[in-house]
């Protein structure tokens, strides 16, 4: 029983990182119908910015987190303006291929700039003791991850539902042309979406670095794909779906390992993707929207 709870805790920690990345995927998809494959690499860049803030600028965890989020927001907007905006009216496959190109560019650009060797986050950046709860050992870092993730998700819900820019985002995702006719600045709204999504990925990067210590220029690939699965699982385009999908995927992976299938963990994640695409293509939270003709 203890072991089962411990596995759940492991899964939720991992899942909240997936959820933070999945939010960016789902927001961007919701608004421009583009799978932004470079998103996992924004996550990687965020991890490195956090790392350099802590080691070179000698900052604590929270300032590093904020710097990384701000830098990633700018980076996300730049990617959108340079790579995706010129293709907004092109075919979706062209935009998708561009996204893959941007992803490779960021990965190997980083290797060119600093080499491929991994870095280790300093262990003492967050001086938190682990606590024992019903015989289950929960590290301070897991709790911190969960707390930061939940706070960021609440902030996101607030932005989307209670602010003007959130209203604009929802309007653009519903119908871009109609929104434009209503006087909404579509370009700025799309940029804001990229900024918020990328800031969340940056935050996930710093949290990942804290929790798993090792970061390297290709670290974004697998979490990026898993977060994509999580976004689809929850229903791509749906913000609550991304959160639930992320947590669910993390827990599924932990439980698969718990029953002795640790080598099947990645396979199971993608089997989940296939099953959801076959049986419920709109995802757990998706509505069945009829194609507009």
């Amino acid at each position, binding site marked *: 029983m*203890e072991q089962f709870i411990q596995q759940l805790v492991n899964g939720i920690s991992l899942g909240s990182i997936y959820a933070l990345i999945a939010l960016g995927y789902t927001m961007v998809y919701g608004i421009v119908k583009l799978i932004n494959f470079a998103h996992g690499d924004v996550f990687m860049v965020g991890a490195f910015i956090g790392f350099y803030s802590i080691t070179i600028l000698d900052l604590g965890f929270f300032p590093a987190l904020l710097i990384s989020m701000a830098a990633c927001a700018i980076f996300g907007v730049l990617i959108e303006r340079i790579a995706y905006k010129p293709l907004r009216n092109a075919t979706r496959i062209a935009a998708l291929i561009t996204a893959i190109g941007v992803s490779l560019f960021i990965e190997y650009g980083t290797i060119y700039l600093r080499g491929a060797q991994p870095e280790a986050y300093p262990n003492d950046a967050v001086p938190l003791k682990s606590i024992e709860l019903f015989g289950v050992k929960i590290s301070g870092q897991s709790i911190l991850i969960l707390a930061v993730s939940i706070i960021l998700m609440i902030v996101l819900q607030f932005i989307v539902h209670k602010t003007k820019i959130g209203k604009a985002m929802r309007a653009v995702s519903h119908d871009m042309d109609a929104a434009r006719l209503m006087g909404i600045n579509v370009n700025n709204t799309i940029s804001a979406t990229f900024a918020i999504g990328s800031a969340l990925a940056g935050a996930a990067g710093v949290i990942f670095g804290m929790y798993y*210590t090792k970061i390297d220029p290709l670290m974004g690939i697998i979490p990026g794909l898993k977060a994509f699965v999580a976004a689809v699982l929850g229903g791509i385009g749906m913000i609550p779906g991304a959160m639930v999908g992320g947590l669910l995927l993390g827990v599924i992976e*932990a439980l698969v390992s718990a029953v002795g299938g640790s080598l099947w963990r990645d396979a199971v994640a993608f089997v989940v993707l296939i099953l959801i695409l076959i049986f419920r293509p709109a995802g757990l939270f998706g509505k069945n929207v009829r194609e507009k003709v």
Partner: protein
Amino acid sequence: MRKRKLAGIFMSLMAAAGVIAGCSSSSSSGGGSDEGGEIKIGANLELSGGVASYGQSIKEGIDLALEEINKEGIDGKKIKLVTYDNKSEAPEAIAGATKLISQDKVAAIIGSATSGNTKAQIEIAQSNSTPLLTPTGTASDVTVKDGKLNDFVFRTCFIDPFQGTVAAQFAAQDLKVKTAAIFIDSSSDYSKGLADSFKEKFEAEGGKIVTQEAYVAKDTDFHSQLTNIKGKNPDFVFIPGYYEEVGLIVKQARELGLTVPLMGADGWDSPTLVDLAGKEALNNTFITNHYSSGDDDAKVQEFVKAFKAKYKDKSPDAFNALGYDSAYFIADAIKRAGSSDPKKIQKALAETDGLELVTGVMKLDKNHDPIKSAVILEYNDGEQQFKSKVDPE
């Protein structure tokens, strides 16, 4: 397209030239080199490229050894080292071996640091009957291929599975643990080989393997597997992996409250391990290795002193020591052969028994694999400390 074609033709011409060179030299081999009181030995090492630090360290060891050997010489003759930089690439290693044998007519070749680059030269060494000695190639199929012995190939280091045996012996006899868990990198032959030999020896010592978990290289999350291991309450966990993953495993294991001794092998031996795991988490962990500069054996301390005198107070690592020992290994064989004829040297190398070296007393088994002692190191606040020396049984 055209350019690529030309390059292709050029490459195949080069390859053909290499083959011809190999053939022509085989007719002249057997003579070795014996010019004006000098015996030529080749060194085919990784002096630049991906694993340059290995080759450079070995070269430092060889240089020191030859300096000492040449003070007296062997039967009045001095050993001359002909060095070839294989740039850490197998094709260059082949070219190097061909050049050393056909042009320089060396009596034997020391090289290379990695098993892969050594394997690339086996064919040339075998067909030219020239001994090839790798200081640090630990893969078991370097000396034996498909059950057949490569009779001209030798090594100074022990082979991979041996470290698993030593670890099991240490766990059962010194730490006196009864149950152990194994956590392997299922994408690495090295890891699997060590795990198998550990299991065999540990069970022979009366211990019990309670669970075996696996990961693949590049994983970052090991919490689930470690939670499973912790649930089985082992007294000891054997983790034969490489430092990039092991660093994270050790950190996560301690976070989950797995406080039992953890142990690995020479794959852990990197300063990066300490950065990843943290000094505190690494306490109560052990590794097996070829050699330790902290060993209080007189022969080791003499070597450490001589090495520090020559290389500005640098403390010699396992590569330095194995390079040093490789030179002595060959010098001893030349002396016993009483000749610089490669075939006689080969015979003398194979008959080596009881040669005292820095990394242990050398005796070869029928597969040309050394049977010698390994050292156990313990991590103490991020520093490796010499714990004990384990002799093979």
